[in-house]
C-alpha cells in the first residue's frame, strides 16, 4: 500500500514536469497575427492607427494586426527588451531618426532594400529615406517627417499690442517681457526641458540657431564651445528672468502641449501634433488662437547667415530582423505608408510623398482637412532647416550625458561651461 502510494505520487510529479516542459506555445492555425509597436505622442493618434489596422485587416483577412502604444520615451527600451525574446515581442516598431545606427549595429533591423519599389523610392521625400538608409541599405519604411515648430498664441500677442511674432530669440525675450508685464501670462514661454531626449531637441534648435553645432568637422564635440555655452546660458537666463515657465525643467512635449492648450503660455515650441490638438475643443481652451511662425534664430546666428533652424524628429517603421512574419509585416507597413492613408489622416501628420506638395495635388492636400492650409505651408517653410543630431551607435548614452549637463546648468547645480565640458568629456570617451 505504502509503495503504491509512493509510486502514484512520483508518477504525478513526473507528469507535472512533463506537462510544464511540454507546454510550449504552438503556432496558431489560421490568420497570422503581427505585433506592431509605436509611440503615443507625435504622428497619428492611437485611435486613428487602430482604424488603419482594421481597414488593413478587412482587405487582408489572413493577417491580424495587434498594435501597442507606449509613450515616446519608452519606445527605445521596449524595442531592446522586446528583441531579447524569440520570436521577438514585436514584428515591427517605430524607429526614431536617432536610433538606426544603434539598432543596425545591434542587428535589430531587417534589411528591406530589395522590398522597396522604385515608385516608393522616387515618390517619398529623399530626406525621409535618409533617415533609414545606411551604407546604401534601407532599413525601414518612412512614416513621419516632423520638425519642431514655433507656435504662438495670436490672441495673447494682440492683447499685448505686439504686431508680429518674433524673428529672433532676443525679440522673443522682449515680447515675453511685455506679455508678462501686462499680466497676460505669468510665464509666457514653455519648453520641454526635462531630462529626456526632448531637451536635446530644444537645445539643438537653439544651438544651430546660434551658429553652433554638436560636433565639429573632425567629429569632436563642439557643443561646449562659446556658442554652446552662450545658448545654454541664455536658456537658464530666461528661467531666472521669469519668462520661461520653471516647470519646463520637468516637462516633456505632452506637458508643453497641456500648458499651451490651457492658455498658460504665449510661445511654445513643439512637434506638429500640438497644432491640430490646439483646435480640438475637447482638449484645448485656445481653439483658433494658435499660429505658426518661422522658428526664430539668435541675432548672432542671423548675422552669420543662418536663415532658419529646427531639429529633425522624423520617425519610420522598421521590421525587426528576427520576425517570422517579414512578408506580412512589410505588407502592413506598405499600407500604413500608402498615399491614400496618409492623405486621409493628414491633419495629424503630413504625407511623406513629394507629389502631394506640387501642383493640383497640393490643392487637394490642403483641402483634405481644415488645418492643412496652415500646416502644409508651415512644414514646407520649416523642414528645409531641420538639423540632425549625431548619427552614432552610442547616441543614447551620449544624449543622456548631454541631457544631464543641460539639467545641471538649468537647475543651477553646475555652471553651463562646466556642465557642457563634462558632457563633452563623456562623448570623447564613448567615441573610443
Amino acid at each position, binding site marked *: 500500500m505504502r509503495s503504491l502510494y509512493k509510486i502514484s505520487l512520483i508518477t504525478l510529479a513526473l507528469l507535472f514536469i512533463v506537462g*510544464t516542459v511540454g507546454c510550449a506555445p504552438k503556432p496558431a492555425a489560421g490568420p497570422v497575427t503581427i505585433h506592431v509597436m509605436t509611440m503615443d505622442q507625435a504622428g497619428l493618434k492611437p485611435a486613428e492607427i487602430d482604424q488603419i489596422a482594421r481597414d488593413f485587416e478587412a482587405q487582408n483577412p489572413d493577417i491580424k494586426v495587434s498594435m501597442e502604444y507606449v509613450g515616446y520615451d519608452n519606445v527605445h527600451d521596449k524595442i531592446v527588451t522586446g528583441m531579447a525574446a524569440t520570436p521577438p515581442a514585436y514584428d515591427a516598431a517605430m524607429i526614431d531618426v536617432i536610433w538606426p545606427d544603434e539598432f543596425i549595429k*545591434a542587428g535589430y533591423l531587417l534589411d528591406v532594400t530589395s522590398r522597396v519599389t522604385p515608385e516608393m523610392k522616387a515618390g517619398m521625400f529623399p530626406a525621409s529615406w535618409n533617415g533609414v538608409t545606411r551604407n546604401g541599405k534601407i532599413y525601414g519604411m518612412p512614416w513621419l517627417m516632423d520638425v519642431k515648430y514655433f507656435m504662438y498664441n495670436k490672441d495673447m500677442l494682440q492683447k499685448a499690442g505686439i504686431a508680429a511674432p518674433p524673428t529672433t530669440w532676443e525679440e522673443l525675450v522682449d515680447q515675453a517681457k511685455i506679455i508678462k508685464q501686462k499680466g497676460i501670462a505669468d510665464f509666457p514661454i514653455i519648453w520641454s526641458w526635462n*531630462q529626456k531626449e526632448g531637451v536635446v531637441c530644444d537645445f539643438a534648435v537653439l544651438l544651430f540657431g546660434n551658429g553652433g553645432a554638436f560636433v565639429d568637422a573632425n567629429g569632436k564635440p563642439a557643443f561646449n564651445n562659446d556658442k554652446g555655452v552662450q545658448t545654454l546660458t541664455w536658456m537658464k537666463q530666461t528661467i531666472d528672468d521669469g519668462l520661461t515657465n520653471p516647470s519646463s525643467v*520637468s516637462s516633456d512635449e505632452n506637458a508643453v502641449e497641456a500648458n499651451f492648450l490651457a492658455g498658460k503660455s504665449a510661445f511654445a515650441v513643439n512637434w506638429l501634433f500640438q497644432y491640430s490638438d490646439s483646435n480640438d475643443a475637447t482638449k484645448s481652451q485656445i481653439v483658433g488662437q494658435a499660429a505658426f511662425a518661422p522658428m526664430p534664430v539668435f541675432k548672432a546666428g542671423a548675422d552669420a547667415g543662418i536663415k532658419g533652424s529646427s531639429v529633425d524628429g522624423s520617425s519610420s517603421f522598421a521590421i525587426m530582423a528576427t520576425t517570422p512574419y517579414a512578408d506580412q509585416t512589410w505588407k502592413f507597413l506598405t499600407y500604413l505608408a500608402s498615399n491614400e492613408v496618409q492623405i486621409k489622416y493628414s491633419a495629424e501628420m503630413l504625407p511623406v510623398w513629394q507629389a502631394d506638395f506640387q501642383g493640383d495635388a497640393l490643392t487637394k492636400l490642403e483641402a483634405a482637412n481644415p488645418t492643412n492650409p496652415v500646416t502644409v505651408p508651415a512644414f514646407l517653410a520649416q523642414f528645409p532647416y531641420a538639423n540632425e543630431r549625431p548619427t552614432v551607435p552610442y547616441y*543614447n548614452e551620449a544624449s543622456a550625458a548631454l541631457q544631464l549637463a543641460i539639467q545641471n546648468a538649468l*537647475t543651477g547645480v553646475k555652471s553651463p561651461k562646466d556642465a557642457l565640458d563634462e558632457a563633452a568629456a563623456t562623448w570623447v570617451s564613448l567615441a573610443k
Partner: protein
Amino acid sequence: MAINSNSHHRHHLTLRQQDARTAWLLLIPSLFVIVGVTLWPVISTFFLSFFNAPTGINQVRTFVGLSNYIDMLKDQTFWETIGRTLYFTVVSVGLELTIGLAVAQLIHSRPWGWQFLRISLIIPWAVPTIVNGAMWRWIYSADFGALNGLLMQLGLIKHYVPWLTLPEMAMNLVIVADIWHTMPFVALVLQAALATLPEDLDEAAAVDGANAWQRFWKIRLPLLRPAILVALIVRTVDAFRVFDIVYIITSGGPAYKTLTITYLTYLNSFSFGKQGTGAALSFLISAVTIIMAFVYIRILYRPEES
C-alpha cells in the same frame, strides 16, 4: 497491512531513509523550477558581469575580467547614486517604521472607528506602484498640482512652485510618495504583533508605577523585536532596490538627483546597451542587500525570544 511485502528488497534502507528518498523525488520538480527560473539567471548574470556585452543579436562578448566592477567603483556617478539610494532607504524606512509603529499603537488602543482605520490602511498599500507614482506626479505638478493648490489656499505660497524641478526637494518628494504607499505594510505587521503581546506584563508594570513611555520603551518594544526585524528587512531590501516609483515620478531627474542604483542598472542595461556593466551593477546591489540582511539579523535577532 502491517507488513509491507516489499520490505524484503529494501532491507538496506531504514524507514527514515525511504521517506527521505521519496521526499527528494517529490522535490525534484520544484527544484527544477527554482533552479531554472531563479538560480540560473543569477549565475548567468554573474558570468555576464565579467564580459563586455553589448545588447543585440549575435553580438561579440569580450572577456574583460574585473573591468566592469573596477570602472564602476571608479565612477563618481556610481558613488553619488549609492549615496542617494542610501539616503532614500534610511529616511524612507526610518519614517515608515516610526509612523507605522505609531499607527499600529493607535489601532491597538482600539479607539472609536479603529476597524475603519485598519481597513482604510489597505488602500494605499493595494494601489499599484505605477498608479501611485502617476498620482503623486500629478499632485506635485507645477501647473496643475493639488499640492500647489492646497499650499496656495492656505496662504503658504504666493506662486505655484515647480516642486519636481528643485534638485534638493525632488528626492524628499519621492520619499513622501513611497512612505504613503508602504507605511501601511509596516503598520499592519506591527499591529498584528502587538495583538499577540501578553497584556499582563503591561498591567503589572503599570501597577508598579511605570508610565506609558517606560512601558512602551522597556516592555513593548523589546517584545516587538521579531516583528520589527521582519518589517525592517523586507522594507530595507525593497527600499534599496527602489525603481518603479522613481521611474514614474521623476525619471531619475532633475539632473539625476533622484537616480537610484537600480535605475542606474536599468539605464546601463537597456538604454545604453551595456549588459556587462548592468550585470556587474546587479551583483553589487545583491551583495549590498545580503550584507544588510546579515547586519540586521546580527543586531536584532535573538533566538531565545522567538
